[in-house]
């Protein structure tokens, strides 16, 4: 079944002060897929996500978001497209001068193309925060929350507008294993309950493994092993980045079978 393209890169390169952060990267993510982008620190994963959203302009190549060429699109024209994308930044990217309520409400209030009526803002914020089990933190400011909680608020903010595409930038970076698993369970939950297309960059292969093999059980409110035929197992693709280059692209079986020393070393260690 061929579905619409949500993000497409065509020979994209990004240069910062003479250094290539992305080097001739091409890929296509289609609606309904789960895309896991693996790579060591400094491999260009974060830049790739920012380019996908038009936050960083490519030096060469073309970028398509929902089949619209955004390579040279003006900032003000990008806003309506960006309103269909949720993003979780590496450290949460929360506004530290705003309360948690204001942070989560931010896209509802500021995205011109969303037009959320004022009376619906608070109920939607509450719903988004309850989704990440932080319904009691409305009046707090980010500095009062732990790193894991800030990441969960970031997930709530990324999903509050119910976008069809959500980008996760290293959601488990710097967290202890238990908190990291909680965050990944929320990513699985968001994917399966809200039916979004997630693109996740991470340095932990087990994050990708979880997304590719587990799904959300609503009745028991926990992740469980996905059965054959579930979108998790059928539609998860991996990409591996190394120093700005895309060195691998394919499903989990191909990843496990890869003979590339960088890819196999990076992946198999964690399986």
């Amino acid at each position, binding site marked *: 079944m061929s579905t619409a393209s949500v993000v497409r890169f065509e020979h994209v390169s990004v240069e910062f002060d003479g250094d290539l952060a992305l080097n001739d990267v091409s890929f296509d993510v289609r609606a309904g897929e789960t895309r896991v982008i693996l790579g060591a620190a400094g491999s260009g994963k974060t830049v790739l996500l*920012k380019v996908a*959203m038009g*936050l960083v302009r490519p030096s060469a190549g073309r970028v398509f978001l929902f089949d619209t060429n955004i390579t040279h699109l003006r*900032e*003000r024209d990008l*806003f309506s497209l*960006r*309103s269909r*994308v949720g*993003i979780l*930044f*590496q*450290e949460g*990217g*929360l*506004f*530290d001068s705003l309360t948690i309520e204001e942070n989560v409400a*931010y*896209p509802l209030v*500021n*995205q*011109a*193309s*969303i037009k959320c009526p004022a009376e619906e803002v608070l109920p939607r914020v509450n719903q988004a925060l309850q989704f990440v089990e932080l319904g009691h933190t409305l009046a707090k400011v980010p500095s009062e929350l732990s790193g894991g909680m800030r990441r969960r608020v970031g997930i709530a*903010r990324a999903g509050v507008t119910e976008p069809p595409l959500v980008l996760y930038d290293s959601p488990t970076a710097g967290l202890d294993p238990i908190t990291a698993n909680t965050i990944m369970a929320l990513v699985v939950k968001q994917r399966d309950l809200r039916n979004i297309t997630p693109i996740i960059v991470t340095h932990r292969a087990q994050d990708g493994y979880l997304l590719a093999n587990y799904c959300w059980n609503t009745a028991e409110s926990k992740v469980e092993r996905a059965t054959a035929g579930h979108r998790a197992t059928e539609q998860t693709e991996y990409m591996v980045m190394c120093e700005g280059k895309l060195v691998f692209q394919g499903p989990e079986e191909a990843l496990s079978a890869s003979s590339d020393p960088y890819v196999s070393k990076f992946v198999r260690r964690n399986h």
Partner: protein
Amino acid sequence: MKQLILTLQDFLYLAGRAFRAIFRRPHYFADQSIQADVIGVGSLPIVMLIGTFSGVVMALQMSRALSTYGAVSKTGEIVAITLIREMGPVLTALLVAGRNASGIASEIGSMKVTEQIDAMRALGTDPILKLVKPRLIATSLVLPLLTVLADFLGIAGGFLIAYFMLNLTASQYWTSAYQALEYNDIAQGLVKPFLFAVVISLVGCFYGLRTTGGTQGVGLSTTQAVVVASVWIFVIDVFVTQVFVNL
């Protein structure tokens, strides 16, 4: 040299976008008021203090020189002209640059390194409209007002010296101060702070938005913003003075 020209080009690009943004919606009036409060009301005590003392010092210094020519009665005139044309605008601008160009650069720089600027753009807000425009408008409104206040307090400070130490009457001092001023002086005294305000706010925003490399980068941006804003204040001062002197 190439780097310097590229930086200037980036600055002019930001300035162009900021000026265009003044007429673009949405207008974040609440942010504008907050900035006017932070920059204007926040700078009031220091501007009042420095304004007064600059007038006092000016009167003291000038009285000695004027007494040589038996022209102590001209103290009001000298204090008024020097303060309104030059000292008031430049001193106030330097104070606000030290206080607010740094504040703006560090605030926006911190937001930049913690990805809050990216988050803002990702969530539907243009940082030029939300961060730069309110600071540009607020500084342009409050700096001329602060300068007028500093000028007045400076002349009043000069009066204290003239009255208590030089034995001039109130009428002698204030009349000579008032009569010395021409429209050219007033215009010069108001055009300068307005231009200085544009430079202070835009330089602060520019270095804030260019910040890279974590907390160390924020410190560097803050320092650069103050130094560059201060240098530009003097450069602009020379050009504006040159224009008004020839009018």
